[in-house]
């Protein structure tokens, strides 16, 4: 059974006014336990709206969201408990920090769960380490930190609830390349270590291609495809028509193919591409 499932999910903003807009249009989706899902699409393709429905922050206009097969909007369902299980990190989450110290801010979620001091302490320290915040930063005021550090505090604040599904809405937006790879690789570590389901929203193919096991492509409020990165990138022309740029390395290999140099598979990470090239040059089979 999928851990999270969307059935015929639709959301329309400002119904009945001139600003009416359907942001999510009859979407069906199944997320399996332990998956690392990348969600890509243009701005306005409905990514954020879809994610906010997944943890019950937005009530669908129609359709249902199932967590462990149970409708989260069912009568008597505890939506707060759903939010502890499906953690959502918003875009620019550093703007939600409010406590006096980093420690207290990370502890906000676990405290709301009603955990005891000891458990809260363990979680705060563990997640702070997981996102690479040094011990001495914990007693600092969040506003005294740098942008990238604040971002990591905010992410830790959601991780500390130890949700079974962790959704991150563009966690790397506005960060420099170094900060970007750092957060993404920390996420991969976290995913490997805890085995929880991670959903990563991004508009950059480059970012997600390296890390995810499944890719969900959204366009104009609908699902274009939901498949492994290799299968998704195999439909590269279609994606480019939608205005979604393929990863640079994939584009390079497509150009090579156009020149008659063929490779058996679609390439979307640099190390894999490098290995293929090296093998080709040395006239051997690629090792991976």
């Amino acid at each position, binding site marked *: 059974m999928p851990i999270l499932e969307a059935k015929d999910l639709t959301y329309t*903003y*400002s119904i009945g006014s*001139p600003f009416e807009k359907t942001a999510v249009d009859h979407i069906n989706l199944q997320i399996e336990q332990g998956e690392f899902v990348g969600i890509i699409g243009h701005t306005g393709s409905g990514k954020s709206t879809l994610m*906010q429905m997944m*943890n019950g*922050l937005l009530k669908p206009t129609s359709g249902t969201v199932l967590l462990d097969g149970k409708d989260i909007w069912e009568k008597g369902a505890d939506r*707060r408990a759903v*939010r*502890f299980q499906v*953690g*959502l*990190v*918003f875009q620019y*989450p550093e*703007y*939600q*920090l*409010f406590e006096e110290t980093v420690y207290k801010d990370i502890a*906000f*979620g676990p405290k*709301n*769960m009603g955990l005891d001091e000891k458990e809260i302490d363990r979680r705060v320290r563990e997640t702070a380490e997981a996102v690479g915040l040094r011990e001495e930063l914990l007693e600092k005021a969040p*506003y005294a930190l740098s942008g990238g550090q604040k971002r990591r505090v905010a992410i830790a*604040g*959601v991780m500390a*609830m130890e949700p079974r599904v962790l959704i991150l809405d563009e966690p790397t937006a506005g960060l420099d390349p170094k900060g970007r790879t750092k957060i993404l690789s920390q996420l991969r570590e976290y995913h490997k270590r805890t085995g929880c389901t991670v959903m990563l929203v991004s508009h950059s193919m480059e970012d997600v291609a390296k890390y995810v096991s499944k890719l969900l492509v959204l366009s104009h409020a609908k699902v274009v495809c939901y498949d492994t990165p290799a299968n998704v990138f195999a439909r590269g022309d279609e994606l480019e028509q939608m205005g979604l740029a393929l990863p640079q390395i994939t584009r390079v290999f497509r150009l090579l193919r156009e020149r008659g140099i063929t490779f058996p598979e679609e390439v979307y990470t640099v190390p894999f591409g490098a290995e293929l090239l090296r093998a080709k040059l040395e006239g051997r089979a690629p090792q991976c």
Partner: protein
Amino acid sequence: MLKDITLGQYFPMDSVVHRMDARYKIIITMVFLVMLFWGQHLTSLLAGLLFVAVAMICSKIPPKMLLKSIKPIVPVLVITGVLNLFLLSGGKVLWEWKFIKLTEQGVQTSVFMLVRICLLIAGTSLLTYTTSPIVLTDAIESLLSPLKKLKMPVHELAMMMTIALRFIPTLIEETDKIMAAQKARGADMESGSLIQRAQALVPILIPLFVSAFRRAEELALAMECRCYHGGEGRTRLRQLKSGLRDYVALGLTLLLFAAVITLNTVLH
């Protein structure tokens, strides 16, 4: 959701009223208000009703929107109605029970009052439905400009109003976002005692204030970078232009008002 509360409640459409000069719309609305409260006779109400009906049709604003604008003041209406109904005495007594008395004048005044308030809200709402808040402040500035001679900082006041109006939707959106983010971390804003609920506001208010200050600073900086220095010699992107339809509309309104005055004096 919070998003549905739009201050200024501008309802974009393409109609004669939407295209009118905002200054004239303000003057006409003021004439309408005076007319509505002119005398104690039925004529002013009928004229007001006629005005609202014609303005509504010309502006293509659906009647449902006007009803929606009246909805928030229903409690006020009920209280005024009831107070007027029982506290005013005069004329024939229609119904009596112990110390509560219902008189002819009480009924008349209370009905008048209710219709008046409804028309007042409907009429002024039409102004805000058909004029975007920014244009509205421009028009207010233009109408108040004679006060500049008295050293009143009219332009600065208008600028402050424009900025405030401009940022209301932004801040509402921001509040929405912060609330959602804190809810995602399990913040509970709907249950608990009054004190608990007040405490639950802290995680929302602090980030909101911080971001408001940040925005103010950024805006001030951006304005300074563009050498903004106040009203003196400044031209506008959107010029307010009056035309035939504005004169006709004002003329008709004044005519209606004149008719109300005449009828009131003749009938008394």
